[in-house]
């Protein structure tokens, strides 16, 4: 099976993960995705972030299917 879910990350998350984009596979929902991300990148520990599925910020667990695009967005404070 090919990696078919694209994850785009912003700000300090991209910096800590040392990538702006990654592909994952076999992840059924956003809770499982967050579990996977935090296991794979413990350096994120508890940085708050918002999750978007196909450019919609989600507010509860949502199932993910092949071809979906996920964005992980941290808050920015600078000005």
């Amino acid at each position: 099976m090919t990696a078919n879910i694209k994850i785009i990350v912003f700000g300090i998350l991209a910096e800590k993960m040392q990538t702006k984009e990654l592909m994952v596979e076999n992840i059924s929902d956003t809770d499982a995705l967050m579990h996977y991300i935090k296991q794979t990148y413990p350096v994120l520990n508890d940085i708050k972030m918002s999750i978007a599925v196909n450019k919609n910020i989600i507010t509860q667990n949502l199932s993910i299917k092949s071809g979906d695009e996920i964005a992980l967005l941290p808050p920015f404070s600078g000005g």
Partner: protein
Amino acid sequence: MSRFERQILLTGFGEAAQQKLLNAKVLVVGAGGLGCPILLYLAAAGVGTIAVVDGDKVALSNLNRQVIFEENDINKSKAETAVHYLKRKHKDIQVIALPYYLNTENSIETMKQYDLIIDGTDNFETRYMVNDSCILLDKPLVFGAIYKNEGQVALFNTPDENGIKINYRDVFPIPPTSSEIPNCSETGVLGVLPGMIGIMMATEAIKWLSGYGKTLCNKMMIYGMLDYSFYELKIHPNTLNCHAPKTIEAFRKTDYKVLCGSTGNSSLADITWQKAISKKENNPHDVVLIDIRELHENPKLTRLEHIQQPLSELMDNERVLPNFKFIYLFCQTGVRSRYAAATLQKRFPDKNICSIEGGIIQLFTIEKMKEYVS
């Protein structure tokens, strides 16, 4: 010929839109990297009344991005210097300097008389405070923020075509601590980035005030300077957005410094499950564990005495607390409980109120602790 001739000429803008700008009253919070371009372009566009609130003074390191100021302005008030500059440039609009910082005492009074608020601040405390003030006053808010080479822009608290309003807490319900996300004074920034984001914010303000074009209402635009990327996200009302103070009185009592963790108050440190459980088992009468999730949320804590008191009710109904000295709150992942602990600790300074680290989900990952969850 008027100085607005070229924008009045624009198809779809015209005299009517120009008149709306001239009649508008806008408050710009912060005269920094975002505030400077915002002020320059709103004044040039002919927004009739522009106030700028900022208690800071100009410093040499500001000059790479705060393009209103010059070397002779160092140590002068940013708000007064910016207003002096804009008054010299444009005599046909009213520009007001408010040379102080917004806080929970003055923010409602300051914002009340303006039609639109623009947040060009540089820290989470003020951003959450400005957001919450706008909710209480029902004022639209142009939001913009930067981190290193990226920026976010949004328009909050104004209804979309379906009448839905969102605010910053729908995107980020709980304030991050300042140590989680550093700001520009710690990370550095090229002046053009706040220039770009500030101009996008001024654009949103002009569009909202004049009705010209489509705004970023209920959306957030993320701009990446390094690769010229634009990424637009749709925002939806968030059920976790229940933390903003509901009344002006509650707002005035909120300590945004504590919420955003910038005081380093050690009493707000999380407690681990191991410690919380052993403390409860050894001092059952002094210690209470409270599940602050909504009643339908699973898994449940078992084999250990605790109270279920959803966060939404806990804040209005604190009567269970006086009986205990140590109050340990938990939720699903430890985020909501940390917020609740910070808020309650302020109300009950003589008690020890902690959030249990990682929430109930954490119990699955600790050997010998899985038996406590069902």
